[in-house]
C-alpha cells in the first residue's frame, strides 16, 4: 500500500505522525485542556469538526481562487481568515439551528481559532499536494489522532493529580514528562502496516 492510499493517510495521520505527540502541533490546547476526560473529549470532537470544514474550505480557496489568480503568497493570511470566519459562522449557525450541539461544544469552539492544528493541517494538505478526498481523510485522521492523544493524556493526568508529585514538578513539568512517555509509546507505531 502506498503512502497516498486513503487508508495509509488515515493511519499515518492518526498514529504514526500523531499531530500532538510526534509533530508537536497544538500543544497549548493539549496541556491547557487535558485535565479531565470530559473536557478533552469535547475539545477533540470540536477539533475534528472544525478541522474537516476548515480543510475543505481552505483547499477549495487555494486551488480555485489563489492559484488561478497567482496569489499563492497570500495563503497564510487567507487561510487564517477563512478559519476565523468559519469558526464564527459555525458558532452562529449552531446557536440558531442545533442549540444542543452548541451548548455541548461550549467554549471550545471559540478557542479553536488559535489552535495551531487547524492551520497546520490546512497548510500540510497543500504541501503534500493532496486531492480533495485525500485532504478530507487527512483532516479526519489528524483530528482522531488529536482526540486520542488528548483523551489518553487526560486519563493519566487525572490519576497523577492524586499522586505525590514533587512541588517543583506539579502542573506543567509533570505533564511534559507524561507527554514524553506517551510520545515514546507512539514512536513504536513507525512502520505500522508498512508505512
Amino acid at each position, binding site marked *: 500500500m502506498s503512502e497516498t492510499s486513503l487508508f495509509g493517510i488515515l493511519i499515518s495521520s492518526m498514529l504514526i505522525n500523531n499531530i500532538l505527540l510526534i509533530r508537536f*502541533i497544538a500543544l497549548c490546547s493539549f*496541556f491547557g485542556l487535558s485535565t479531565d476526560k470530559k473536557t478533552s473529549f469535547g475539545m477533540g470532537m470540536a477539533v475534528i469538526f472544525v478541522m474537516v470544514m476548515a480543510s475543505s474550505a481552505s483547499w477549495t480557496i487555494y486551488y480555485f481562487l489563489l492559484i488561478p489568480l497567482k496569489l499563492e503568497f497570500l495563503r497564510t493570511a487567507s487561510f487564517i481568515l477563512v478559519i476565523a470566519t468559519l469558526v464564527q459562522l459555525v458558532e452562529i449557525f449552531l446557536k440558531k439551528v442545533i442549540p444542543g450541539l452548541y451548548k455541548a461544544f461550549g467554549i471550545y469552539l471559540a478557542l479553536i481559532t488559535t489552535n495551531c492544528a487547524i492551520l497546520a493541517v490546512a497548510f500540510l494538505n497543500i504541501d503534500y499536494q493532496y486531492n480533495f478526498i485525500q485532504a478530507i481523510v487527512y483532516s479526519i485522521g489528524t483530528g482522531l489522532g488529536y482526540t486520542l492523544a488528548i483523551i489518553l493524556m487526560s486519563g493519566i493526568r487525572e490519576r497523577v493529580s492524586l499522586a505525590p508529585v514533587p512541588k517543583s514538578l506539579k502542573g506543567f513539568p509533570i505533564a511534559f514528562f507524561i507527554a514524553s512517555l506517551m510520545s515514546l509509546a507512539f514512536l513504536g507505531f513507525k512502520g505500522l502496516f508498512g508505512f
Partner: protein
Amino acid sequence: MGQKLECFTDGIWKQNPILVLMIGLCPLLAVSTSAINGLAMGLAASFVLVASNVVVSAVRKFIPNGVRIPIFIIIISTFVTIIDLVMNAYFPPLHHALGVFVPLIVVNCIILGRAEAFAYQNPVFLSLLDGMGMGLGFTLIITLIGAIREFFGNGTVFGSQKLISAPALLMILPPGGFITIAVLMGIFLYYNNSKGKREAKK
C-alpha cells in the same frame, strides 16, 4: 525610565513567555532539534512580534473593539508572510528545516496574546520594548533547548565537531523534546520556589 526598562526585562525572566506565561509552546519543541534551528525560529518570531506590536500600538486608536482580533490577525499574517518569503529567498535550508512552523507563527499565542494584552493598550515605544523583551526571552529559551537537544542527541554544538561519541538519539526525537522542557521548567520552578522561601524567611 524605570518602567520602560521593566517592560523590556520582564519578558526575559519574570514574565518569560514560555517558562512563566506558558504560551507559544507550539513551535518550541518541533524546531528545537538543533541550536541553529531554534535560534532561527526565535529570531523570526521575534521579528513578527516586534513588528506587529509596534503596528498594533500605532493604530490602536483606530481599531474598533469588536473587530480587533481579526485586524490583529491581518497585521500579524502580513509580517509572517514577509518573513516567510524572506527566509525562503535568503536562507532556503533554514526555511526548509522550519517547514510548516514559519506560517504557524501567525497563530503563535505569544504574538496574538501580546497584541491583545499589551500593544492594544500601550504607546508605541513601550510596545516595542515589550515585543523585544518577550522575543528575546522566547529566543533564549528555544535556543537553549535546541542546544541541549543537539548536544545530547547529536554531540554537536551549533553544527560543530562531534563531542560525544555515542549520543542519545532520543533527544532529537519527540520524546526528548518533551523531557528537555519538563526538566527546564522543573528547574525554573524549583529556583522560583526556593527564592520565595528565602525571601519569606528574611
